[in-house]
């Protein structure tokens, strides 16, 4: 086992009564990086994090966190990890500061040290003014930041974030993202699970795509995007009636079968030589008299990669 791996997992298996949740899950996360674990609901993301955070015992395979076996030395692992689950796991009745002091005491800090650490973390996460207020009165983003702060009391080597922004509004999401970026700057290793592709794109340096309990693809966000070809061209027509004609034009020039999105009057297809393709599409559309609202070249989104890799029927509109 390489010593610079903060998380090292081989062949992890976990079965619930009716179905396997993890089915030969492998993962290596180098120290000091952010790794995204991406997958649809039920792919096994949360199970993986729960095993790594010593909350769940695996049926088979090996998992090391910060160099320690989670099954054999859970107590040592617990001194080195932080966990932010899907709900803000803080006491709603107590104030933010009281929460942090309580968790600090449970981490066996002295009374004064726990107080100092609480004040420092409140300051750092922009909660200093709200420290005395009961958490009940906090916004979603504030709760998550407090949750994050509570996970960082012992300065963990590895931090697990299980869908840290689920249920947050865009503003809360940005708050949490900023907090995570700051952590990474400090050298904390982060394992992040998410269903939001832009979240993985924004935060993670490497991504593992999880489906049916195993990793189906991995790499940097850019590598994953290039998996389904290079650039794409999007054509948005002005009139619904022109959609089929525009698709025919694009098909003649593009690399593959164009995708038609009637709701947005958009035709989308992969292209090889971006500038030549763009010029040609504009010229042919013009000669055929098809009125166009917008034409753009772009990289594929992670959504497209994700849907391709996990073969989920395309249900969402973007």
């Amino acid at each position, binding site marked *: 086992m390489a010593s610079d791996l903060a998380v090292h997992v081989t062949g992890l298996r976990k079965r619930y009564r009716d179905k396997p949740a993890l089915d030969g899950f492998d993962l290596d996360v180098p120290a000091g990086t952010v790794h995204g674990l991406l997958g649809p609901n039920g792919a096994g993301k949360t199970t993986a994090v729960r095993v790594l955070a010593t909350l769940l*015992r695996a049926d088979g395979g090996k998992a090391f966190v910060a160099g320690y076996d989670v099954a054999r030395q859970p*107590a040592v692992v617990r001194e080195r990890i932080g966990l932010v689950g899907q*709900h803000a796991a*803080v006491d709603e009745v*107590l104030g933010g500061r009281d929460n942090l002091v*309580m968790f600090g005491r449970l981490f066996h800090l002295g009374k004064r040290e726990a107080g100092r650490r609480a004040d420092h973390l409140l300051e750092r996460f922009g909660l200093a003014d709200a420290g005395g207020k009961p958490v009940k009165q906090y916004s979603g983003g504030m709760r998550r930041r407090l949750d994050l702060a509570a996970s960082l009391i012992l300065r963990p080597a590895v931090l697990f974030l299980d869908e840290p922004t689920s249920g947050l509004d865009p503003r809360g999401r940005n708050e949490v993202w900023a907090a995570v970026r700051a952590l990474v700057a400090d050298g904390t290793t982060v394992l992040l699970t998410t269903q939001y592709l832009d979240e993985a794109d924004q935060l993670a340096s490497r991504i593992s795509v999880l489906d049916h309990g195993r990793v189906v693809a991995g790499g940097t966000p850019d590598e994953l995007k290039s998996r389904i070809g290079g650039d794409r061209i999007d054509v948005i027509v002005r009139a619904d009636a022109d959609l089929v004609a525009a698709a025919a034009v694009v098909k003649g020039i593009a690399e593959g079968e164009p995708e038609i999105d009637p709701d947005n009057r958009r035709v989308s297809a992969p292209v090889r030589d971006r500038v030549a393709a763009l010029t040609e599409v504009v010229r042919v559309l013009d000669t055929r008299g098809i009125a166009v609202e917008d034409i753009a070249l772009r990289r594929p989104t992670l959504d497209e990669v994700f849907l391709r890799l996990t073969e989920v029927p395309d249900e969402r509109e973007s």
Partner: protein
Amino acid sequence: MSGSREATVLTTTVDERRATERPQAQQLKWALADGWTITLRDLKHWAAQPWQIVFGLLFSVMLVLMFGYLFGGAIEVPGGGNYREFLLPGMFALTMLFGLEATYTAVTTDADRGVTDRFRAMPMAGSAVVMGRASADMLNSMLTLAAMVACGLAVGWRWHEGVGATLAAFGLLLLLRFALLWLGIWLALVLRSPEALMALQILVWPLGFLSNVYVAPQTMPGWLGTLAEWNPLSATVAAARELFGNPGWGGDSWVAQHSILMAFLWPAVLTAVFFPLSVRAYRRLSR
């Protein structure tokens, strides 16, 4: 600890030793400290929501007034005494029974919000979570009992058998609460749903009424009366009445004759069953 000779111990070795060879005294010390931290958390809840305590107490007071004055007139007390003299020990025991709901709610709320998971992923003593819950709930029950006693004294209830017997009666009441604590924790860990509280109430109320608290089991249909007499609550209530010197129903059955013994035995049995079950359920969270 024999590691002092190894001058250059790797950090991992030190850590492993810390984890595996932590002296037991040290472990116990931390378990107690952690338990106290969790207890303190509940005490802070009271301070943060004093009205919740007040409403809880008012509810108990209301029950005393309602049964003492509203229904009390219709019920004849054996020996022709004051119904409230008779009623109060039963109300004390009911309060202990209702504590079950408080325990259940506290444990499921923590589990539901992920607080239990946070505790479990921390290097704290696992037993501390339960110990803290137990001590906080017992403190809460003592407070409620004290308020009920004050209320009872105000409506004419008295103890008549001296300090020793009186304290013994309170002890038996708290013993029942202690036993029900484990039932509450076990139910919470098994059901894991704050919403199931309603179902629990449907269970708890009949348990409260199918007893000797309000009426004599002898007046119930045969099998129901037997059930009421064997209800753990009835044992505690009958024992408390005897020890306080308050009027009771008496009864010829073996259970009715040995209420003080049963008031020890029932909680002991409940604890012996549900304490290990709670520990097991807590461990099974990692399954």
